[in-house]
């Protein structure tokens, strides 16, 4: 195995490519030899970040999308021409809101689900025929670490994260015999509470994504991996 070029010959589409983690994933995947396309919503901020990324790694293709139904349809229709061999899809979108459930706006919840989860599902559906044809595919969903532990005010974000982890766990059962698998990375929703010194950085999530994307983890299927310094397992000792 070429450990220094773990994604040689691979083609990755990174959704939320202008998010902190999305950027790190795109740059790391490119460093490891993948042909990378980073996509994010049209905005001034996206444009600024994409300009920076173009300077750091000129080979990364950058797409601004509006993610409307029409746009997703275009991705689906053009999958065979624009992403002919896209065999890695990473969702690194990062739009979450907190709030107590009785006050939480349903519109915000729907948008959260749409940006972080539904778009990834629809893009995965668009790329799936190619993955099945090529007998290779990795779906990597990056979600907040709220699937197994709770915090006040996070019910909606946690529901979103739980949906992503469950989707990855289940969808992999459909297609694993085509060598198409899915896994989830859980990243700190509120950094700074970790037992390990220092909060995780986007590169830490990117390294986990790299591990999921390459053959190092080829027998790891439908898993959720917390990159959060152990905070999920930590209960503070009562003060004496």
């Amino acid at each position, binding site marked *: 195995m070429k450990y220094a070029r773990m994604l040689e010959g691979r083609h990755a589409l990174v959704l939320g490519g202008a998010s902190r983690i999305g950027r790190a994933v795109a740059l790391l995947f490119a460093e490891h030899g993948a042909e990378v396309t980073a996509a994010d919503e049209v905005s001034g901020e996206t444009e600024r970040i994409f300009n920076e990324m173009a300077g750091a790694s000129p080979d990364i293709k950058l797409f601004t999308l509006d993610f409307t139904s029409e746009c997703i349809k275009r991705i689906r229709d053009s999958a065979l021409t624009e992403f002919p061999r896209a065999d890695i899809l990473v969702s690194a979108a990062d739009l979450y809101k907190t709030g107590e459930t009785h006050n939480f706006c349903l519109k915000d919840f729907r948008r959260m689900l749409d940006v972080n989860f539904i778009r990834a599902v629809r893009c995965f559906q668009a790329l799936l025929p190619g993955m099945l044809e090529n007998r290779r595919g990795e779906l990597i969903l990056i979600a907040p670490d709220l699937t197994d532990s709770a915090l006040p005010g996070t019910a909606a974000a946690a529901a979103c994260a739980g949906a992503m982890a469950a989707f990855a766990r289940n969808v992999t059962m459909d297609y694993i015999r085509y060598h198409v698998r899915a896994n989830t990375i859980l990243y700190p929703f509120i950094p700074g509470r970790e037992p*390990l*010194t220092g909060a995780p950085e986007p590169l830490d999530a990117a*390294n986990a994504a790299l591990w999921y994307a390459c053959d190092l983890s080829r027998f790891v299927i*439908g898993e959720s991996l917390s990159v959060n310094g152990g905070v999920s397992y930590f209960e503070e000792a009562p003060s004496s």
Partner: protein
Amino acid sequence: MNYDRLLEGKFAVVTSGAHGMGKYIAKVMIRHGAACAINGMNPEGEKTAEEFRKNAPASFFIQCDMSLSEDRRRFIQEVSKRVDHVDILVNTVGINRSDFSGEVDDERFEYTQQVNLHGAIWMTRGFLPLMKKTGGVVTHISTIHSVLGMPPNTAYASSKSAINAFSRALAVEYASYGIRSNVINPGGIFTGKTDEILAGIANSREELAAWGRRGDLGQPDYGSGSAYDIANTALFLSSDMARHITGAVINVDGGVVNQAHRFYERKLPPDHDEMFYQVIKNRFTPVEDL
């Protein structure tokens, strides 16, 4: 980060590293720049150490029966005399002497606990002083039976499940020293004798496919995994790629733990038989080829 030499300059202790899964783990770590102390019951383990020293001169073997507290103590003392830092500990050793719950034999139960659980805890406790100097990583090789039931597995499952809990406790207790602790739950994994089996049937497509199908029952993925998969997961967890991962349990099992039950309709490709054959043919990298 140098991904081609993820463990450059590190010193690793791999229990039961003289053969089987432990040998795969040690070899991958040496490939990435580490030196290894390994142990095993059979004195022939020295030959493995000799092989390791070609690429990692500081590697060595110490004969050790992990069921005996005096042997475990001697191993820790000898390693601690020979090196001044231990960066990585992989608790690989494991045996299975299980009975049905209602028929548990005291001696077999105790022996399994001594090797699997006490072995892992003693090794960890023994090497923590060396790890506390600069931080370190402990990886426990547990089993999917720590979270799934498969009769009869009383002694084995309970010993390994206890290791999972121990790992979590260790992770939070020693996080402030920069020490991480994680668990790998292997599923169906072919190890030691696989090479010999495959060497005998490698040229027969039918025999190879038939052999592979024995490990395919109830698996979401094709057949069984390779010890190489476990080694690569241990490498990931031991390296800075996972520097913020601690307290985790990773199932390296082809999806067994995550499937609701084994009787479901799978979508099979039209060339499933050919794919199956190719997987079985190519998945099992002989340890000599690492």
